[in-house]
């Protein structure tokens, strides 16, 4: 029998004085960790299968359960962490590429936490959002460069197609297949109620959701899954996915066992076949090819919908964005390296890409230097964790932000990062009907609405504190930010001063 090098990562600690043997933990764990032992007359747990999803902990009616890090430890080593060592054991066992889910969890700098926001005092009054109008309405799209007047000298008020958002927050792309039908329904209904948009991701659009079309961004990714005429026409905007923050340079991956029933039909591929998106779009090998696709999509939808191009934050993001801005795209979405994913090779997720804060600042500045910032709107994503992150992103230059992980957290995700196993205990990243049932969209959509509403209120409070009452005046307003504990170079890239200056 080969040696099992993979030791349990967690310990299940049960307070037996509190446990009433209701067996809810047993019934609700998809990984079969808990069981009731008749002979012993108590609950027992097999911690080797635990992924720390916190389902049992949250449902236990007497709060008898805790999941702890397994105290069993390797000898301390500043260079070889337990995680690194275990990853090598895994690869020695299987010969496979390590897969991870959700965003990069490593200890890299989080610039949002090093940036501070201003408030008005004495020389300029702050504004009270409870008593004065405070506008967060945002339009995404291109701006015309010429004013035209009719014969009577009146302005001709035609504009290129825009997305109108009541709040500067949208739901980021998460494909049907990587997340469940119920998760999509929650996102769609929340987007409709909030007056914002959600994104189909590269899994196509289920026909039950066409009715939410006016609040849907349909994505065209390298695999072109689910892309057909009605799909393009159903959405309010079309997003060409050139890259994703969590895995720049490669395409999506949905294992064959998740491609069943509706997933297979919506993606337009046979059941059981792996849905592996190619790394590049095979008809886009250069910027001029992108321009061709942008205009093909516009022509196919009669120039009535804005086209978004989503790019991952990589080293020369500023130059790439400049090219995209000149390719006819109306909106550029930049996805930072902390962005989430249903499944990605661990090495790519953790080592490829750059932080969204730096990418956003660089792109916004480059587009202004070239005088083309008003040709596109910018959307930033890749770990926007709070309304403060959103305000900082807008002040750095974004028109709006995309939230992915935050939305899933609102739906019940506990970031156990086991999505790729397909056994999400919260009904989000799974296609098993018994598990998907756990996400009731009536509850899910209300939680999403609550989250975004709360953030919008906080954004208004912060804006009021800065003496701003319309969000346009916050966009790119770098003087409202100061850095703390950042190097000269970091401050320079972010384009902000240090606190105290």
């Amino acid at each position, binding site marked *: 029998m080969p040696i099992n090098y993979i030791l349990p990562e967690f310990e299940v600690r049960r307070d037996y004085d509190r446990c009433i043997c*209701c067996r809810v933990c047993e*019934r609700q764990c998809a990984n079969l960790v808990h069981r009731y032992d008749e002979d012993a007359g108590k609950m027992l747990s097999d911690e080797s299968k635990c992924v720390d999803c916190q389902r049992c902990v949250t449902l236990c009616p007497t709060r008898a359960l805790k999941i702890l890090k397994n105290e069993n430890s390797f000898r301390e080593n500043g260079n070889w962490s337990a995680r690194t060592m275990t990853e090598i054991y895994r690869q020695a066992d299987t010969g496979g590429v390590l897969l991870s889910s959700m965003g990069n969890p490593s200890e890299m700098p989080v610039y949002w936490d090093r940036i501070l926001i201003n408030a008005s005092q004495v020389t300029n009054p702050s504004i009270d959002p409870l008593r004065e109008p405070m506008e967060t309405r945002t339009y995404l799209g291109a701006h015309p460069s010429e004013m035209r007047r009719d014969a009577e000298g009146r302005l001709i008020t035609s504009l290129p197609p825009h997305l109108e958002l009541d709040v500067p927050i949208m739901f980021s792309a998460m494909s049907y297949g990587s997340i469940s039908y119920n998760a999509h329904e929650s996102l769609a209904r929340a987007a409709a109620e909030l007056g914002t948009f959600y994104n189909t991701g590269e899994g196509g659009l289920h026909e039950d959701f066409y009715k939410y079309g006016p609040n849907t961004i349909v994505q065209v990714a390298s695999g072109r899954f689910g892309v057909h005429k009605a799909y393009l026409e159903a959405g309010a905007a079309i997003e060409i996915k050139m890259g994703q923050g969590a895995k720049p340079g490669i395409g999506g991956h949905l294992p064959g066992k998740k491609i069943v029933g509706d997933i297979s039909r919506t993606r337009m591929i046979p059941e059981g076949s792996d849905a592996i998106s190619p790394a590049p779009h095979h008809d886009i090998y250069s910027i001029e090819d992108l321009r061709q696709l942008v205009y093909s999509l516009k022509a196919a939808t009669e120039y009535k919908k804005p086209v978004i191009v989503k790019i991952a934050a990589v080293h020369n993001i500023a130059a790439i964005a400049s090219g995209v801005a000149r390719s006819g795209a109306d909106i550029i979405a930049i996805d930072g390296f902390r962005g989430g994913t249903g499944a990605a090779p661990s090495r790519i997720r953790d080592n490829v890409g750059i932080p969204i804060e730096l990418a956003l600042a660089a792109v916004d500045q480059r587009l202004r230097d070239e005088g083309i910032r008003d040709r596109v709107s910018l959307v930033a994503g890749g770990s926007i964790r709070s309304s403060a992150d959103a305000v900082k992103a807008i002040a750095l230059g974004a028109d709006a932000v995309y939230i992915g992980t935050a939305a899933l957290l609102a739906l019940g995700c506990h970031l156990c990062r086991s999505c790729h196993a397909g056994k999400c205990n919260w009904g989000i990243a799974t296609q098993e009907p018994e598990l998907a049932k*756990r996400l009731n969209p009536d509850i899910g959509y209300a939680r999403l609405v609550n989250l975004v509403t709360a953030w919008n209120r906080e954004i208004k409070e912060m804006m009021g504190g800065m003496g701003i009452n319309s969000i346009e005046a916050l966009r790119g307003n770098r003087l409202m930010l100061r850095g703390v504990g950042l190097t000269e170079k970091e401050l320079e890239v972010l384009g902000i001063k240090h606190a105290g200056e």
Partner: protein
Amino acid sequence: MKRVYVNEKWCLGCHLCEYNCAFAESGLSDMVKALKGRAIRPRIRVEERGNVHYAVSCRHCGDPVCVKGCLTGALAVKDGAVTVDRKRCVGCLTCVALCPYGAISPSEDGPMQKCELCLETAAGTPACAAGCPNGAIVYEER
């Protein structure tokens, strides 16, 4: 009149409703004290087979068969809800046999028991609905 309704689509078969019911009925403030080491006899029960789960409790029928069949008049309709007068119940089990939903069962000490919408419990509102983690059980008027 508001009743407890179960949406089978969302019932996960977790059985939390049963434990919340038993706890509410105990009248105690601490769930561990109320339920530890005891076999519960909840007034709502989850019936299940395979992947189908459904919690069953008294429907408070408009024309209750159990009331008609009760030998001693222990079962009666009070403000629309069907209730049991524990002092009158003699344990003949006629109502248990008659109820088409199997909603009545013997309590620990003898008289029959069934869901009475938590009208007398500390909770004041049906504990099963309040404690359902997935919105499967609701307390509403239809």
